[in-house]
């Protein structure tokens, strides 16, 4: 699979974080979305990870095991907390979390998203379907080449993406 440079990843993450209102709450997915954490932290946002964290920060301090969706060690912001999986998904499904920044294998111009499989490999949905179903604003951060006119791999959800951010720009999907 073609890779994207770290510099481009940071550009995308910074742009996506700039869309989020200061102080609001955001679910971050695995991959490029985890790079948004630093920028969201600067905006005093509450970052939620499906690993159980409410209020993540990029710096690991203290002795507890705290990991993000990409299994990287991170920390808790002031006032942050950790709960179990059922609790976190109840929270995500409650509608209180208004924003999600997510990765995907492909997103097309109609906002259809592919994230769970290619024609040769199967990943599974993870927590993506819960987030697609219950979070208001879904921002997808993907390399430009994955933003396609029509999906070439199996669709995971139709008309899901509200905004797509790539290294080249920012697209609102109507």
């Amino acid at each position, binding site marked *: 699979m073609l890779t994207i440079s770290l510099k481009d990843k940071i550009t995308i993450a910074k742009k996506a974080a700039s869309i989020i209102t200061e102080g609001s709450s955001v679910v971050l997915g695995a991959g490029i979305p985890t790079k948004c954490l630093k920028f969201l932290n600067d905006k005093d946002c509450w970052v939620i990870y499906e690993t159980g964290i409410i209020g993540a920060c990029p710096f690991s301090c203290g002795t507890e095991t*705290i990991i993000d969706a990409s*299994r990287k060690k991170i920390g808790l912001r002031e006032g942050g907390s950790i709960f179990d999986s059922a609790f976190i*998904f109840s929270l995500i499904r409650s509608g209180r979390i208004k924003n999600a920044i997510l990765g995907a294998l492909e997103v097309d111009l109609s906002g259809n998203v592919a994230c769970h499989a290619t024609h040769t490999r199967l990943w*599974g949905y993870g927590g993506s*379907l819960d987030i697609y179903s219950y979070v208001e604003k879904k921002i997808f951060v993907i390399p430009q080449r994955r933003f396609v006119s029509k999906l070439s791999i199996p669709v995971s959800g139709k008309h899901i993406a509200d905004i797509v951010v790539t290294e080249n720009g920012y697209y609102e999907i109507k």
Partner: protein
Amino acid sequence: MPHEVVSDFFFDVDSCVFLIGGFGGTGVPMKLIEMLARSKSKNHTIITNDTGTKKSGIYPLLKNGKVSKLICSFVGQNKEVEAYLSDIELIFLPQGSLAESIRTGASKIKGFHEKILDNYRHTESIYADYSLVKAAKADIYGNLFYDGTDKNFNPIMLMAGKETLVEVDKYPVKLKLHERMMPGIYVDYILKR
């Protein structure tokens, strides 16, 4: 008070349903998984969030042919397991549905209706013969303390199994009231790492 896990615990338990805690390789009861993988038992249904990593996850169970059915939300992080998945029945649940069906199973609620994307569907609760979970510390009463995000699926899985086995790093230790995250009444067996 909980009993200690003996090494041939799973010797003659065929065709059982196991809940196994962990998320992406963290909070995984690896010693218990290895014990089950080494046993003579077979034909099990495994319910776990994901297949973890090669070193930390259910890989030994797949490799040793213990699994006939796997219910999970994600298998993508672990390339090693791919070869084994075609031989077993594989069922994907959205992670929130998986978590909720374990929680309702623990409360003996039969199932629930939920909306996934634009469709309403009925999801059956999950019940299991055994729960294999990981905690950081336990006191002599089996009260458990979890370390950070190692918590993940472990508390709800502990509640949903008929018999529960907990793998802990430190046992027995004294736990202060605020450290007792799960009551020992749920804990049948303890294995010290």
